[in-house]
């Protein structure tokens, strides 16, 4: 049994009525990369939080290196040689790299004494694992890829032999993700054990040795990665067969519905977020905007939707100008045939404390179908909501339920149903499947294609490159606020990745 790093036996955990983990058994072999895959809410993060001492299991046993250990808090986990790289980095942004690495492992009451030691230890780790980072840089000045590296260094500094990475690639560019994979391979070669949590099947296939699948709080299967397939894993995750590729016919672009000309947007600090962007979207086509989060896609979407003022440039909707630099009004835009599915459904798309039926008409409450100008017609609103619930398979099918009680995927469907059922001419969608389960993704993608086939102009923004490639008829890549290239969906991932990292784009712009 020498080659077992971690064994979990019968782990069970409930949060009130929610049974997050049911009788979980898991064995992770030493010196391997073990993937844990499952949909959102399958209980992966809960399980790892138990392993890291963030929560206590209601019952069950944890064995590290064959010996049972009680992990009551992160301290005990660190002592047992377990380190964790969290999905949302646990870094203090206005501290230096060195300070972040030292935090909690300072050795001395007075900082000066420990700093020199920490610095030389950090140097040694950097050399040993090829993890270069300037120890005196402030975290907030580092790109996310490097911030993640600091998290890994933090764990190694605490002498972790077992590294847990929770959804580590969500914030990375494809190139950064590849770099991370190389680092992980290097760590594995040095004898470290890595637990890799993700919901992306491709990553599991790319780097893991073994993979365990979770579904609804249960561990449903463990496979050797080389002996399984994406299709099998997807089926295990969802519990039924899923179509991973969206079926779509050729697009039939017609008239220009949305024309954006020289659009520039600055944020409140005067920093240019969108820089002289020009493109058009025709009826019956899907234009996808690819890019790493934070390269101006959000601001572009908001400016077109009339939520954010543009500094200069113009937008034409159905051939008529929109006052994007002045008083563009989201309500007016909606009445002119623009529907907007915002990127952040929790803060912009929904009022989580409202009933489902209320959210289903949010922004359209003046419609004579729903109100007579003073009072809302509650019966009509509920009846309408129930129709949408049926059509979009929103679960649980209860229009009176508080929106916060729906899962992410179903919340997203509520927003999509509201916007798509208005029969708009132009549909702009931000991150249609962020935090959405594989099963719901399939449904949402189908609906977006249907909208296209009905002759709508669709503008799609997503940080998921796979999504952009499988849905779009044309792909625009944004980097640092500019559109740095247009590609067909047949472009390779590597080609798009270079554009997203700003490498190809600069060359192209120079020519």
């Amino acid at each position: 049994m020498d080659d077992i790093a971690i064994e979990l036996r019968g782990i069970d955990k409930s949060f009130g009525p929610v049974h997050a983990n049911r009788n979980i058994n898991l064995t992770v072999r030493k010196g391997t990369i073990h993937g844990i895959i499952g949909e959102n809410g399958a209980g992966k993060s809960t399980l790892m939080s138990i392993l890291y001492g963030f929560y206590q299991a209601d019952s069950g046993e944890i064995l590290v290196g064959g010996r049972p250990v009680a992990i009551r808090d992160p301290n005990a986990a660190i002592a047992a040689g377990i380190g964790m790289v969290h999905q949302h980095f646990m870094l203090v942004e206005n501290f230096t790299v060195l300070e972040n690495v030292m935090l909690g492992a300072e050795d001395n009451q007075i900082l000066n004494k420990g700093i020199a030691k920490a610095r030389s230890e950090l140097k040694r780790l950097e050399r040993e694992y090829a993890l270069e980072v300037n120890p005196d840089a402030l975290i907030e000045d580092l790109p996310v890829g490097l911030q993640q590296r600091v998290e890994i260094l933090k764990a190694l500094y605490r002498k972790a032999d077992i590294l847990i990475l929770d959804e580590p690639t969500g914030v990375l560019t494809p190139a950064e993700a590849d770099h991370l994979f190389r680092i992980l391979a290097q760590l594995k070669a040095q004898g470290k054990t890595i637990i890799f949590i993700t919901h992306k099947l491709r990553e599991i296939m790319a780097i893991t040795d073994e993979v365990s699948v979770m579904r609804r709080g249960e561990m449903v299967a463990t496979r050797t990665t080389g002996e399984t397939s994406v299709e099998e894993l997807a089926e295990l995750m969802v519990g039924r067969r899923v179509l991973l590729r969206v079926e779509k016919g050729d697009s039939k672009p017609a008239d220009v519905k949305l024309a954006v000309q020289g659009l520039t947007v600055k944020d409140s600090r005067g920093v240019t977020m969108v820089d002289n962007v020009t493109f058009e979207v025709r009826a019956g086509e899907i234009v996808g905007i690819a890019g790493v989060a934070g390269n101006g896609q959000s601001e572009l979407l908001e400016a077109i939707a009339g939520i954010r003022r543009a500094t200069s440039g113009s937008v034409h909707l159905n051939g008529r100008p929109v006052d994007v630099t002045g008083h563009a009004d989201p309500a007016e835009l909606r009445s002119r045939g623009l529907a907007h599915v915002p990127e952040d459904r929790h803060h912009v798309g929904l009022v989580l404390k409202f009933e489902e039926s209320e959210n289903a008409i949010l922004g359209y409450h003046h419609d004579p179908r729903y109100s007579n100008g003073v009072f809302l017609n509650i019966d009509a609103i509920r009846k309408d909501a129930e129709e949408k619930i049926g059509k979009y398979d929103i679960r649980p099918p209860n229009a009176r339920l508080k929106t916060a009680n729906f899962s992410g995927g179903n919340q997203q469907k509520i927003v999509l149903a509201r916007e798509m059922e208005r029969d708009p001419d132009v549909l702009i969608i931000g991150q249609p499947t962020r935090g959405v389960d594989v099963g719901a993704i399939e449904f949402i993608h189908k609906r977006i294609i249907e909208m296209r086939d009905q002759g709508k102009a669709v503008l799609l923004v997503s940080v998921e490159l796979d999504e952009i490639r499988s849905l779009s008829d044309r792909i625009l890549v944004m980097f640092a606020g500019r559109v740095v290239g247009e590609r067909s969906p047949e472009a390779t991932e590597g080609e798009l990745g270079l554009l997203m990292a700003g490498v190809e784009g600069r060359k192209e712009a120079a020519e």
Partner: protein
Amino acid sequence: MDFFHVLIVLLESTIRVSVPLVFAALAGLFTERAGVFDISLEGKMLGAAFAAGAAAAVSQSVWVGLAAAVLVSVLLSLVHGYASITQRGNQIVSGVAINFIVAGATVILGEAWFRQGGRTPALVEGARFQIVNFPGADAIRDVPVLGPIYADLLSGHFLLTYVAFAMVPISWWILFRTRFGLRLRAVGENPGAVDTAGISVIWLRYRAVICCGILCGFAGAYLSLAMTAGFVKGMTAGKGYIALAALIFAKWRPVNVMFACLLFGFLDALAIRLQGAPLPLIGRVPVQLMQALPYILTVVLLAGFIGKAIPPKAGGVPYVKER
């Protein structure tokens, strides 16, 4: 030379009125850097001033008075800590509640115990702080320029005054050069980072709150044991809020805090000085306007003069482990 004399007097009284502000603002610095917003500096200072006045009057000892001030202020801090750290309550509501309770309780207890309309008995020598005179202060007072600076500006203050200004570099050192300070600043920015590093967020924040209590205790003791000889109801008169303003104005940095407090103190001293005196070009200014000057300045400065003050990121937010 007359102008110089006026300036020395003005600066001397600036220092005198700045002391409670320095103590209170540094107190706020400790909790707010740890992510617990504290609007109850005012209440703690008032409670401490009352405790100091009452205990010193009964015991006839200034040290018993100081100890009582610190004790009461720390206890009030722990109440705020319990509400906002353990129970994850709203920190503003908890702070306001403490301010109200103390404002009422000091008057009721004062009247019940001493029957002087909410005052505590006037303190005699030995039960209050005495002026500390530096050696040779009187001898060199007549030396031009340097004499008055040494004798009137540097010498001739209360012990607590020197403690207050010594606390500025000490606080800086604690916050930026010790392990406790590193963790304290971290917990105010991202408590998750502290928790995952295996450090207790709750215990760390409680310690920060206790530091705040001790310093507010000093501020209160200064009011009733040094500045005046006994407690008078409502004697903090908004100093806790001014200290809070100074803290924001100083962008939560210790040395800036001291200068901000001196600036507010200077305005206060100026207001006292200019009462009733006609100003050139403007003429006689109503007393009320002069007294309002520090507050008006607070609003003006905070409204945008100082650029963006970025508070500790986790400030005001109770820590709940994320699911």
